[in-house]
């Protein structure tokens, strides 16, 4: 009994160290999306560039990235060159989130438009249905329109190789 009492604090300490160590590598801002395994919510919004009415049925019939962005979002500018590069490899659909038409168009004109289509969502309605908390966010969607992955924040080489690529190989 006495022996146990001597070792108990060390045991508790070790457990705490374990938790804290795990905590070091966790990002509390990263939350699991409630929409993993769910289809992209239905929507009827216009294309920012063409003015054409878009719906869920018109999304690409192959795995694609759905990138939530806005002209007011700094990180979106940072990830833009990388998304442009990625767009040669797979379709990237834009979801212009809570933006104005002119600002968004200017942004694309200045930085280039790699998007396969551009869903214009000024009210943020589709963003809300997707559980978007802010821009940028990127979803990996499969050929039948089901969401498999949600990336909060910048998409870059590290995120692609560590998260997107493995999931992409699984759903292809």
């Amino acid at each position, binding site marked *: 009994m006495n022996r146990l009492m001597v070792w*108990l604090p060390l045991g508790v300490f070790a457990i705490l160290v374990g938790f804290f160590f795990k905590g070091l590598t966790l990002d509390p801002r990263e939350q*699991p999306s409630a929409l993993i395994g769910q289809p992209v919510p239905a929507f009827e919004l216009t294309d920012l560039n063409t003015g054409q009415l878009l719906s869920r049925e018109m999304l690409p019939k192959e795995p694609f990235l759905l990138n939530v962005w806005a002209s007011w979002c700094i990180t979106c500018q940072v990830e833009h060159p990388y998304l442009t590069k990625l767009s040669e490899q797979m379709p990237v659909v834009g979801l212009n989130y809570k933006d104005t038409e002119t600002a968004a168009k200017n942004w694309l004109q200045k930085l280039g438009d790699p998007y396969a289509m551009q869903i214009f969502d000024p009210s943020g309605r589709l963003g*809300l*249905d997707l*559980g978007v908390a*802010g821009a940028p966010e990127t979803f990996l969607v499969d050929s039948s329109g089901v969401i498999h992955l949600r990336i909060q924040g910048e998409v870059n080489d590290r995120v692609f190789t560590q998260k997107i690529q493995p999931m992409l190989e699984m759903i292809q």
Partner: protein
Amino acid sequence: MIKTILVAFALAASMSVHAAIETYQFDSPEQEARFRQLGYELRCPKCQNQAIGDSDAEISGDLRAEVYRMLKEGATDAEIKDFMVARYGRYVLYSPPLDKQTLILWFGPAGLLVLGGILVVLRIRQSKKALEEGESQA
């Protein structure tokens, strides 16, 4: 006199600040109370630990507007919470429902308290015993 003027200014200033914040019109005081209550119970998805009711984040404003819209349409509190959970996950609930996944969350602290209590009792008994043994030997 100066005091009165100052108070008047302060009041005027605070009113204009208030007006700049969102203004929601409610059908009844009950509805307004439910709006406030939901504002306390729903958590801002962008913040670490803030309810949507007292967060300045853009998303919190959007969610408040959504709560308001649903209240006006006659949705129940449960429907509004389900709507939020379907989009933002369990994270948005400050008081998550009791089930397998949240068992540790609900009973962990009480469990630790009981465990600690047992340890303390054992410890006291032990030292008492040791003391008594020491006395009988003496």
